[in-house]
């Protein structure tokens, strides 16, 4: 399977935050949900892919090209949707097309206008008057009009109403139908990922916690519940994020340790939200124990 995007050991440090050895790949023809809490490094990773952030080390390949030395050639084949428009909002859709069209060798005016009509966007109104959902659709129309092979969306669904979110996800699902296109979209709305993503990469504190197919993630972790006294010490050390209640505990466990779980404890399937919450708890616990050690 050909990878449309490959990131290997990406490191990027800022004074208060760092990406540490971020590695993942996205095969052609699939949607990857890029999830993590706010500040986990999703946007920094996307900015690194787009060569907007200068990476300290590591390698990013898109279409087999280097993200730094081949950035102009890559961007001819890339569609990007940020959470804001970043276009002159006093202009109309037609005027924006006139601005952007000459930059792309594969621009197709017919496709652009048919998408604009399909998305129900007025062509003569200032785009600043558009709702957030309409602005997202405009950027997607731009990406589709130059036949972008990979679409990267940074938090596209945050701030959208449920109907607009649903429409956007349908557009993405249709986009990859021909198995030639791929989508990487970052979000903290995990319901969107559950609905359309084939692959998931989970980021926390600048590190990749999980990357793989959605099915692999579904079978990787379980929630473990029961009385604290029934939890063996050896197993407790393998738990990810531990939460004790007055009448028991709740934690997350890698399924490779399932055979060590006593019958008295209950296991349940963990959804993406729960996995993110327990990863955050575990990271918090590790930070506390590190500071205690110091």
């Amino acid at each position, binding site marked *: 399977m050909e990878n449309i995007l490959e990131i290997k050991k990406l490191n990027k440090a800022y004074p208060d935050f760092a990406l540490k050895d971020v590695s993942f790949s996205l095969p052609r023809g699939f949607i990857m949900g890029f999830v993590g809490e706010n500040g986990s490094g999703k946007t920094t990773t996307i900015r690194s892919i787009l060569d907007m952030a200068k990476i300290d080390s590591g390698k990013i390949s898109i279409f087999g090209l280097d993200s730094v030395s081949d950035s102009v050639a890559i961007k001819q084949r890339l569609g990007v949707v940020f959470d*804001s428009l*970043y*276009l002159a909002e*006093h*202009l109309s859709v037609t005027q924006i097309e006139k*601005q952007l069209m*000459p*930059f792309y060798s594969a621009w197709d005016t017919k496709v652009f206008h048919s998408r604009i009509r399909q998305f129900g966007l007025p062509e003569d109104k200032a785009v600043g008057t558009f709702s957030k959902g309409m602005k997202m659709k405009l950027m997607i129309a731009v990406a589709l009009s130059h036949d972008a092979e990979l679409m990267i969306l940074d938090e596209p669904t945050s701030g959208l109403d449920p109907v607009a979110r649903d429409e956007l996800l349908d557009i993405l699902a249709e986009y990859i139908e021909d198995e030639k296109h791929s989508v990487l979209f970052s979000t903290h709305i995990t319901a969107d990922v559950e609905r359309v993503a084939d692959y998931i990469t989970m980021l926390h504190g600048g590190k990749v916690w999980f990357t793989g197919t959605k099915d692999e993630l579904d079978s990787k972790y379980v929630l473990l519940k029961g009385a604290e006294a029934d939890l063996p010490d050896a197993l407790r050390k393998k738990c990810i994020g531990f939460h004790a209640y007055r009448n028991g505990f709740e934690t997350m466990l890698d399924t490779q340790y399932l055979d060590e779980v006593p019958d008295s404890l209950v296991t349940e399937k963990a959804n993406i939200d729960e996995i993110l919450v327990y990863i955050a708890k575990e990271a918090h616990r590790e930070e506390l124990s590190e500071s205690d050690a110091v």
Partner: protein
Amino acid sequence: MKNYLNLMRFDLITAVCSAGNRPAAAALLIAAAYLILVFLGVPLISIALYIGGILLIAPLQSAAEKYNFNKLYGILPVQMRTVIQARFLLIAVSMLFCELAAFLIGAVSEMLHIYRFEGDFAVGIGSLLTYCVMMFAFMLAALSFVEAAHWIYGQANEMKVMIYTFAGIVAVALIFGLLMHVHILPSFAQLGKLLPESAGGKLALYAVLHLIAAGICAAFCAGTVRKVAPREL
């Protein structure tokens, strides 16, 4: 080269177009008032056309800041240095256009003026051309400085930089004025006599002024590219 033209076109659409027709009506009114002043008043007023250059660059800088074009530049298949160079090129080309248009409009007005009031056409045109070239050199250098300050310091700090620079220029002018007053330096009248009077000399002066202005613009452009292009977007 294609990307320079694409970016200049991009900037022109940003600065000139809007989704409605209101600014077009305002521009027509301003153009009509300008032509009436030039043709019924003084031909030299034609050099006011250079203000058009400011009216082109100011909204462009404002839109770039307001809509965070830096992010857009990160998406488009162009390098940051090309974006900056294209902006300086647009300023130079627009100033050149202003110079040519101001001279042509002024020359036609001068012809009508002389027809009405009599006078020496060659002297009038020569003087108009000198003012047009000097105005071109001044405006290109000044706008290049403003553009560089905008890229390097951002709109928030750009005004502060310009106030300090203006204060510096005023201070230097005062010192020069004082030195002229006490006859340590020659006065402007004496300096004026140093200007060449022959046609060849004047043409050489115009060429030198154009080269100096272009050099200043290129230097500000190179400095801006060096400072801004390595930045993260």
